[in-house]
């Protein structure tokens, strides 16, 4: 036997050994496209870490099937996301796509995913586009619709009886949606509505305007670093004690608190999830996330965890048969247990859930965290579902 023949034999044997031995269950392939670099990286990393944690808790199986997760970084860039999603659908033949953080990125790839009849499970982005007329059979969102958290804070400002409010957001679609959501439930007088440049660094001009206008409350939607900048400067200008700053949960979560520190103590914000929500899933999630990653989980992390739970629940309901799509969808929509208790969904795929009031407090051990202060909305859906024609 020549050396060449021998090597061929070895390769053939190796292939035989590597081949699956007959009727092994097939693997579920998840395409996880998220923002893992640049300014939004912290959000994507939280979702991914929590998604992986949930998989570990589920024994690396979803609905009884072994799991393979393919991860890609979209760099917060719609074009990059499109290329990654295309590759995952065509070459890797993933069964599900999930992970996207930013609405503009999701809107750029949604059609691609839906056309290939693949479910997209959103752990964050919740654009109004997919909630109304363009709602889609293959779209499921385990987080919220973009307007919801702002609606909750608008309602809270109304309940508190603040007669005047000054509201701010960056000048881009989600910023305009946010202030629209706030105004949908706040009926007092808006004495200033300011849209700033996306990515603006310095907010001294806006803060001086707020001081001059002297409103009863300020509401600001600034995602990521913009929020850290705005809140730090608001506190540094000495306004924190004079005019209450109201925030959506995104702008007052563990990641922002970590960057701003003590000046944030006292700030009220709205969220569908809280660290101390009392249920076994949330307890296990919070404890294990802290132990595994050595930081306090954010609401983004809870959503990543719940995305995996949604997949597990749906796949369990169809007995791991990936072709029973209508049943999968029905099972997820009818509800399942999450980190925020049992959540069910509207026909447009968006959740119907509670929205809570949280306040940033300093604990006796010096740790600064969000505490649950009350419930603003019970079983709250979104404003667009009536226009969705899905059954």
């Amino acid at each position: 036997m020549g050396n060449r023949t021998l090597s061929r034999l070895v390769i053939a044997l190796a292939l035989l050994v590597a081949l699956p031995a007959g009727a092994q269950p097939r693997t579920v392939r998840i395409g996880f496209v998220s923002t893992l670099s640049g300014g939004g990286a912290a959000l994507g990393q939280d979702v991914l870490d929590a998604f992986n944690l949930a998989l570990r808790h589920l024994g690396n199986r979803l609905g009884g099937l072994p799991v393979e997760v393919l991860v890609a970084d979209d760099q917060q860039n719609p074009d990059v996301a499109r290329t990654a999603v295309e590759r995952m659908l065509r070459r890797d033949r993933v069964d599900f796509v999930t992970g996207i953080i930013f609405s503009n990125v999701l809107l750029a790839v949604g059609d691609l995913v839906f056309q290939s009849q693949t479910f997209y499970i959103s752990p964050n982005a919740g654009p109004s586009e997919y909630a109304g007329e363009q709602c889609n059979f293959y779209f499921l969102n385990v987080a919220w619709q973009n307007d919801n958290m702002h609606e909750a804070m608008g309602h809270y400002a109304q309940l508190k009886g603040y007669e005047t409010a000054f509201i701010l957001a960056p000048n881009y679609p989600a910023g305009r949606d946010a202030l629209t959501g706030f105004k949908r439930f706040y009926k007092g007088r808006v004495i200033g509505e300011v849209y700033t440049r996306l990515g603006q660094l310095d907010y001294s001009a806006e803060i001086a305007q707020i001081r001059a206008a002297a409103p009863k409350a300020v509401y600001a939607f600034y995602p990521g670093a913009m929020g850290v900048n705005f809140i730090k400067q608001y506190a540094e200008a000495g306004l924190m004690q004079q005019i209450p700053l109201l925030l959506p949960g995104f702008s007052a979560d563990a990641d922002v608190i970590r960057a701003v520190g003590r000046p944030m103590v006292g700030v009220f914000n709205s969220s569908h999830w809280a660290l101390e929500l009392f249920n076994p899933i949330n307890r296990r999630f919070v404890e294990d996330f802290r132990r595994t990653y050595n930081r306090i989980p954010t609401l983004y992390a809870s959503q990543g965890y719940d995305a995996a739970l949604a997949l597990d629940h749906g796949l369990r309901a169809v007995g791991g048969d990936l072709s029973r799509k209508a049943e999968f969808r029905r099972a997820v929509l009818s509800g399942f247990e999450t980190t925020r208790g049992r959540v069910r969904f509207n026909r447009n795929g968006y959740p119907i859930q509670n929205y809570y009031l949280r306040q940033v407090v300093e604990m006796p051990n010096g740790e600064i965290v969000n505490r649950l202060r009350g419930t603003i909305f019970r079983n709250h859906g979104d404003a667009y579902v009536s226009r969705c024609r899905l059954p």
Partner: protein
Amino acid sequence: MSGFPAALVLEQLLNGLQLGLMLFLLASGLTLVLGIMDVVNLAHGSLYMLGAYFAATLARATGSFWAGVALAVLATAGVGVLLEVSVLRRVYARDHLTQVLATFALILVFNEGVRMIWGPQALLLTVPQELARPVRLLPGLGYSAYRLFLIGVGIGLAAGLFLLIHRTRLGMWVRAGASNRAMAQAMGIPIRRVFTLVFGVSAGLCAVAGALLGPILAVQVGMGEEILILAFVVIVVGGIGSVKGALVGALLVGIVDTAGRALLPPLFLRLLPPEVASNLGPAVASILIYLLMAAVLFLRPQGLFPVRA
């Protein structure tokens, strides 16, 4: 401008001055490197980011904001010198496109490196206790002590830099290098060592800006890119290679940007119907500095204070 309260106008001027002086710290280094060495250094913003990260880490380690800032400036200047000796020196002779690609690659390396060491979450750096209160400037005008301190530091460093450049031998060499590098070299100036020194100083200035802005901005990966764009606007307006141009450009950009955001939207609301004004006001305010840059380029293509006339 009647109708705007005087206190508000004064406060905006101070805000503009503060932003402008911090921009100057970045732009002066950038303009010297570009003017003298003829290197387009996109990684300038990464040194600013590094300064902020070093300050946040060292302030926590030493328990003192001031020690953190001082050590961060030294450490970043060191990184700057290392960077010049190891990488940038190799691209001096190449064309600008190569330099842009190489220093862009450096941005990616720095961002990824910072993310690997410190993680993707933003870091905590807060205003030092002794400056965390307003100072009463006039009756009815309290102004942040920390921002006043930034203005002071900015003015001090600008003055120091002018003395260094106009009153010392090193400064003479730098000026000679900026206006005619080949001639300066022929006259026996140790250009290579001057380059390294200038690069170290400019990295140190980046670190001052990063460390001092850290308490009011987010200390996070990618923070250098946003401010780098502003710094480039400043040197285009001021003229490449000119520290005086960088100062005037930075103050113009700072004041025009701040004043525009505060005063334009209400001004538009007075002059135009509300539905037009509410869209046009914020839009024009956010592009005002680019309009300024276009206007300067139209009237003086070389910038306000060109070095090589």
